Structures are given as structure tokens and as C-alpha cells.
């Protein structure tokens, strides 16, 4: 079907590219301490991108059953090309892709029963720990096939397998609501329900008692998850070639300059075997690589898809990502913060006399990301007192500017971990941040 679409499109346009995806998903959900639903989802769709008279046209359809459907797709791409942007790129031809592993037959082989027992084991571990826990668990597998073919002979064809397990606990005492969760995801069938349950249980136990903090500046320690949902969003936006091209990134004119603490290095790496964000090529058929974003505090590279790179006069970086009903745009594969020498999370906690440990903030990404300002409600976080966790903090916000916060890093932990698949980082201790709390 891909070839047929390309043939039809070549008659109408100078360049054509067909993108097809097909995915099957099997998510099982457990709600309120028992299995609640089994879902099976199949979806597929095809996008056509063309360059006609130098302009980009795009069409997308998941209605592909009838003979006229491909013609309709070509017609919609041709119509949009009349108004489309001037193409500033050429598509890649054929090449030998890297051998990154994205498919584990053991994931595809997981049966409904396997997934049910994966979820059941996590649920039982949580429930057996405390019968007051109200638990939700999700176990799922997904197999996606991506095929891309362009009129220059370039393209890609790969299969990705993903398995995930999430566990969450709600504990309500009076009007004190505590929600804690952990999500593990992998391209390999290597997810351990014990790890997921233990992580949730540990976080609940640390939050059993509430502690008071005062409104002032203090050291704030971010766990990998806390770092991901509090500080990374403005950085992801700032390093996107699209933001840079618009001049809206505070880093646009800082390439090659030291902006961050010298301890900080961040990479985008699509070449890690079985990492959820890895694949042989991006969604435009460009090979993936390991791109340094920050090295020793210096701003090194912004990420680009082909068109954005063309407009910016920059090198494409293999970061073209599509939705698939939209044109490719810069997207990250696996964002990896390099570990430092600060030791374990426990070591870092031990080094703080008075501070806050942040596991999850709400709303930090809602503010003025362009400026790097963040201000998040500590949804799950703990007071650190004399090197020990002293209870959960509530009604508390941490706020600051990400560029100032990451200029003054007290320590970067030595033990990185994956958070939700596409992000890996160690804990980071920021020397001084504003903490505000409700009085009395």
C-alpha cells in the first residue's frame, strides 16, 4: 500500500514520502484493588508528505479500506501544498541504519494471562503491605511497526515492542489525601513487579507523617522523577530547534558558551538498545545518534528536524518526530543527564542540614517556560532535616529560574535511573531555591 501511495503521489509532486504506522496494544487495568478491564486496541494510519512546486503538502488518513481512499489522501496533500511552506530540505536517500535494538520477541509473546499475572503480582504486593491502600495497577504491552518510504529511495522499516507496569496507591486519612505512583516501561520483557511495588511502598512510608517547612530559600534535592517534571520542561523547550529558530529560546545566542554549572552534561541519545525512545531512524528516515545538548555546562547542540534545520541553516540532528497526522517537528529520543560524583540519593540527603526533597511537582511546566521560570506545587516531597527525611511537606511551592538553579548545582548524584522511558538522570541537589508554604 505504501508503494502504491508513493506511485500515485509521484505523479503529482516532485518529492513524496509515505509514512505508515500500525500498532496493537493490550492494556489491562486494575482499579480499586481488583482487575477492572481488559482492552485491545488496534490502530493504523498513513501520512503523505509531498513537495509540489517547492511547497510542502501534507495529508493523513486512517480510512484506508476503500480503493478511492489513497486518491483522496493524495488530493488532500496536493490541496494543502498550494498553501504550504517553502521546502528547505531534501529527504535522505537509502542508507544502512544502525543496529539499535527496539524489539524483544518476548514482549510480543506476552499473553493476556502473562499481563494479568504481572499486574496481579504488583497489586498483591501493594495490598499485602497495608490493607488501607487503595490501589490501581496498569499492565500493558504494545507492538508498533513503522514504515517510511520516500521517492529518493530512502526510508525505514522497524518494529518496536514496549511493555509497561504502573502501580499507584491512594491513602486517605481524614482530609489528608496521599497519592503515590511508579511507572516502569521498557522495550524488553524485563519489568519486575517487585521493583514497582517497592518504589511505591517506600514513597508512601516516607510520607506517613507530615512535616512543616518555613518560607525561605534553602537547598532543594530533586530525585530523577522530580528533576524530570520540574526542571526539564523549560530545557526541552529551549533546546528545541524550533524555539531557537524563532529566537524565543534564552539559549539561541549561547551556543558554545557556558551557561550551566560545569558538573552538568545532558545528551539526547537515540542509540541506546531497548530504551523506549530509541529507533534506527527518526520519522524522516534520518539516522539517530547521540547528540550532546550540554557538556560540562557548555551549550553544545540544539535538536532539529529537516525543515527546521533548513530554515535555521543548521545541521539536521535526526530529531524529526511526527504525530503522525502532523509534519515532523523537533522531538527528543532519550534525554540522558550524565551522572556526577555526588554518591547515592541517601548520600545526597545526608549532606543537607535543612532542605526539601522533591519527587513530584504539579504545575511547574505551566508557567513561562520560555523565560525558564518555574513554580511548582510539591505534590510529593519531603523535608530534609539534619541529613534525614523528616516527613512529607504539603501546601508548599518551589519556585525559581531553571537557568539560575542549574548554574549553582551543589552536587549531582552518581546513580542515574530511567523515568518513564525517555528520560534518564541521577538526583540533583540545587544549592538554593525559594520554598514557600502556607503559614500556620
Amino acid at each position, binding site marked *: 500500500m505504501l508503494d502504491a501511495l508513493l506511485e500515485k503521489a509521484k505523479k503529482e509532486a516532485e518529492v513524496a514520502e509515505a509514512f505508515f504506522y500500525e500498532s496493537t496494544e493490550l492494556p489491562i487495568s486494575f*482499579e*480499586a484493588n481488583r*482487575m*477492572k*478491564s*481488559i*482492552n*485491545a486496541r488496534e*490502530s493504523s494510519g498513513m501520512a503523505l508528505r509531498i513537495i509540489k512546486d517547492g511547497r*510542502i503538502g*501534507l*495529508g*493523513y488518513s486512517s*480510512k*484506508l*479500506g476503500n480503493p478511492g481512499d489513497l486518491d483522496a489522501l493524495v488530493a488532500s496533500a496536493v*490541496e*494543502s501544498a498550494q*498553501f*504550504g*511552506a517553502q521546502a528547505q530540505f531534501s529527504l535522505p536517500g537509502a542508507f544502512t541504519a544502525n543496529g539499535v535494538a527496539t524489539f524483544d520477541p518476548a514482549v510480543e509473546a506476552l499473553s*493476556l494471562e502473562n499481563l*494479568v499475572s504481572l499486574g496481579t503480582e504488583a497489586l498483591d504486593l501493594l495490598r499485602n503491605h497495608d490493607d488501607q491502600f*487503595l490501589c490501581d495497577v496498569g499492565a500493558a504491552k504494545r507492538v508498533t511497526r513503522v514504515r517510511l518510504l520516500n521517492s529518493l529511495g530512502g526510508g525505514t522499516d522497524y518494529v518496536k515492542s514496549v511493555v509497561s507496569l504502573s502501580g499507584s496507591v491512594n491513602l*486517605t486519612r481524614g482530609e*489528608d*489525601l496521599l*497519592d503515590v505512583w511508579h511507572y516502569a516501561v521498557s522495550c524488553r520483557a524485563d519489568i519486575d513487579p517487585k521493583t514497582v511495588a517497592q518504589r511505591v511502598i517506600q514513597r508512601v512510608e516516607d510520607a506517613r507523617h507530615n512535616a512543616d517547612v518555613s518560607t525561605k530559600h534553602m537547598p532543594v534535592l530533586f530525585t530523577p522523577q522530580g528533576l524530570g517534571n520540574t526542571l526539564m520542561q523549560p530545557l526541552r523547550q529551549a533546546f528545541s530547534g524550533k524555539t531557537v*529558530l*524563532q*529566537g*524565543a529560546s*534564552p539559549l539561541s545566542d549561547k551556543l558554545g558558551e557556558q551557561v550551566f554549572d560545569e558538573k552538568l552534561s545532558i545528551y539526547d541519545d537515540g542509540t541506546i538498545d531497548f530504551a523506549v525512545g530509541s529507533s534506527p531512524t527518526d520519522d524522516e528516515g534520518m539516522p539517530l545518534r547521540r547528540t550532546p545538548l550540554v557538556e560540562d555546562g557548555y551549550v553544545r547542540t540544539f535538536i532539529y528536524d529537516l525543515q527546521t534545520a533548513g*530554515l535555521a541553516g543548521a545541521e539536521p540532528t535526526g530529531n524529526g518526530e511526527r504525530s503522525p497526522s*502532523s509534519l515532523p517537528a523537533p522531538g527528543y529520543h532519550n534525554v540522558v543527564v550524565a551522572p556526577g560524583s555526588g554518591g547515592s540519593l541517601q548520600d545526597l540527603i545526608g549532606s543537607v542540614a535543612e532542605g526539601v526533597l522533591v519527587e513530584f511537582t*504539579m*504545575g511547574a*511546566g*505551566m*508557567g*513561562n517556560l*520560555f*523565560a525558564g*521560570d518555574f*513554580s*511548582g*506545587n510539591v*505534590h510529593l516531597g519531603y523535608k530534609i532535616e539534619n541529613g534525614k527525611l523528616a516527613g512529607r511537606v*504539603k*501546601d508548599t*511551592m*518551589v*519556585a*525559581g529560574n531553571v537557568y539560575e538553579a542549574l548554574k549553582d548545582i551543589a552536587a549531582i548524584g552518581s546513580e542515574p535511573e530511567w523515568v518513564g522511558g525517555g528520560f534518564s538522570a541521577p538526583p540533583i541537589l540545587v544549592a538554593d531555591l*525559594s*520554598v*514557600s*508554604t*502556607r*503559614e500556620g
Partner: protein
Amino acid sequence: MRERIEDALKHHTADYVEIRIEETKSTSITYRGQDLEEVGTTTQLGGCVRAVVNGGWGFVSFNQLSDLKEKVTQAVSQARLVGNEKTELVDVPPVDDVVRVAMVRDPREIALADKKRLMDSYVEEIWRTPKIQTSTVRYGDGYRKQYYGNSTGTYIEQERGRLTAHFGVVARDNGNVQQARTGFASSDDYSVVENRHAEVREAAAKAVGMLDATPPKGGEFMVILDSTLAGVFAHEAFGHLSEADHVYENEKLKEIMVLGRTFGSKQLNIADSGQVRGLTGSFSYDDEGVPTGKQYLIREGELVGRLHSRETAGKMNEAPTGNARAESYRVPPLVRMRNTAIEPGDTPFDEMLAEVKDGVYCKNWYGGQTSMEMFTFSCMEAYAIRDGKLAEPLRGVNLSGNVFTTLENIIAVGNDFAWDPAGGTCGKNGQSAPVGDGSPHVLISKCLVGGQ
């Protein structure tokens, strides 16, 4: 289609089965800066079957509609694997209806070239303002036709339209980068996005104006929320807590959210409605074929109702409300809001302002989030209030607090009212849905402001 759906529903062995088939067609035009970035059209066709057996659910979604009967069998057998309790769904009288979309000014009748010309003129308007660094202009319209049938004998064909134009503006002065936005949305009228040059110009001016703003000091302050932000507060802070799927299997939360409990003063009224004409959160029937209406959540300060699906209403023994919504045929419906609003009270804005010695006036928003009892939202525009008068502009103001105490702390409800003209999009469990938020100005005696 009716025959195929009704045929597939025959002879099933489940307690309840429903089939949804959806066809959508959408158009989008996107600009980054002064350049057109993307013009695209999308066509989607797909369906799903959802079944319940002994309280357990099975769900199957697909793009190939060829064998509906087989999909029903698959969903029922999945449900049977899960279920080992009693199915409790609320009784809803069967419906047989066809809902055609009645457009005031139909975007499908406007040529793509004309839509583009209109958006071009807004892009020009934005760029007349000095110090603009970049802008994003997004126009989109979509049309959805849904065929729905279930085993209680309901069959509904429902059309829905939606169009939006959103404008984001970024201003920059050296390292200082500020942004503002505005937008317009409608379910049935293209004219809401026409003749908006003044509003677009004003958004550009606001982004530039925020360059001179200072970050707030952190701590607790008296705050006034404008109608847009107070609408988001109603949605985030109380609306989500009223979604019965959070409550129906959580005995402790049931105790907190017991009907009749007082949450605020007499002047506080909050309702959720699927029937406000023209808003993008409105529709005749939800994705379980239940008619929508207006549901009061808080009346004169007292909790009087919540939002339901067939199952949550059945399990809690309350009346159905038509709040089961699915993002698309790919996913099962969730209990969620439609158009949520704080209803007008009797305090003029000037009187509210006069109450505030040292506080913040917060307008419009970037986003909001809630974790049941805690909420947070970020203001697009804010001003310090000193001795009853508006003072300097503030940037990066995030508000946060505990829902229960903040509702109690609403000490005045304005005598004005507006729906957010931009419409809203609500995210829940990975699904997004268009919603409406509205309110008058409200005065809150104490709210936590995140500062630096």
C-alpha cells in the same frame, strides 16, 4: 450503519454492550513567527466495542470495521475474564435520535484560502507590535459524525463541530522573554474567529508589557481572580473532585464528598452543563448515549451533586448526568466535565478591589493541575494590589492551595460573568477533551503564591 450496529448487538451474552463508530475530518493551519508552518487535513475512521460482564469491562478498538460481530465477541470474552462481581449500571431510558449539527456560520463552507487569508491578517497584526520575538497562530476546525448503539436499545447518530483559533505571542528584551495568548472557540460559528484584530493586538501588547513585570514575592496573599482564571479554578479545584470515578470506590473520599456537606459560603454556586449553546464542551448525548443536562455541584455553598457515567451512577445510586466522554473511538469513556462554571454573585469588582490591602489580581492562565485536594494554576497576567488599588505588573505568578480551605476562603463572588472565549482542553488519564470554563471575578482571602 444502523443496521450493521444493531445486527452486531444481537445475541450477545454480556450484561451490556455498546458500539461507537466515528468518522472525523479536520483541517489545521499553523504559523510559527511570520511564516506559515503547516496546512493539513486529516481523515479518521474507526470504531470500538465495549462490554461489561459481572462488573468487568472489555474494550476493543479498531480501524477496520469489517467484522463488528467478531469485535463484540472479543470484547465480551475479555469482559468475562475480568468480571466476578455484580454489574451495576444506572437505568437510562433507551434513546432513538439523530442530532444534526446546526451551524450558525459553517467553517466547512469557507474555502481553505479564505481561512488562510484571515489568519495571515492576524499574523500581520501581531508583528506590527515592536519587541515581538515570535508568535504561534493556530487555526483548526473539525467535524465528527458518531454512530452509537447499545444493548438497551439506544441508537444515536450525532454530529459535532468544533473550531478554534489560538494566538500565542512571545516578546523578548535581551534575556527577558515573556508571553501572552488569546483565543476563540466555538462549536458552531466561524464568525467567532473573524474580526478579532483588536484582541490579537492586545495580546501582543500584553506580552510586551510583561517584559517590565517583576516576579512576585512568595507567600500567602489575598487574591482576586478574573473570570477566566476563576473558571479554571472551578474546573481544576472542584470539578475534578466531583468526578464520581474518583469517589465511587474510595470509601474515605466518599466521606469527604458526602452530599449535603458545606464547602463554601451561601453565595457559592458551581454547575457543569453540556447544554450551553456554542461552547466546545457541549453536546446532546455523551459517549455512553446518555442525554446531557445541567448538573449543580455546589448550591449555596453545599455539595448537591457530582458527575457520573452509567457505572458510577449505578454504583452510587445517583441519577445519570451524561458525563462519560471519550477522546475518540480509540479509548473508553472517562467521567469528565463539560462546561463548568461558578455562577454570578452580587459583588461589584470595585468593591472587591477595595477590600485588598496587600494582594494580587490574577488574570487568565497558562494551565492548571490538580491532585484531588491540592491544586495549582499559573496566571498569564497579574498585578500587585496595594491599599485597594492596582499596582505594578507581576510575572510568573503561580497559585496553589488546598481545595477545601480555598473554597471556604472565597469571600466574595462577582456580579459579572464570562465563559473563557478560548475554550479549554482538559487532560485526564492520557485523554484530552474540549471543555468550557466560566465564572465571575472572585475574591479569595488567602491563597499561596509561588515566588522567588
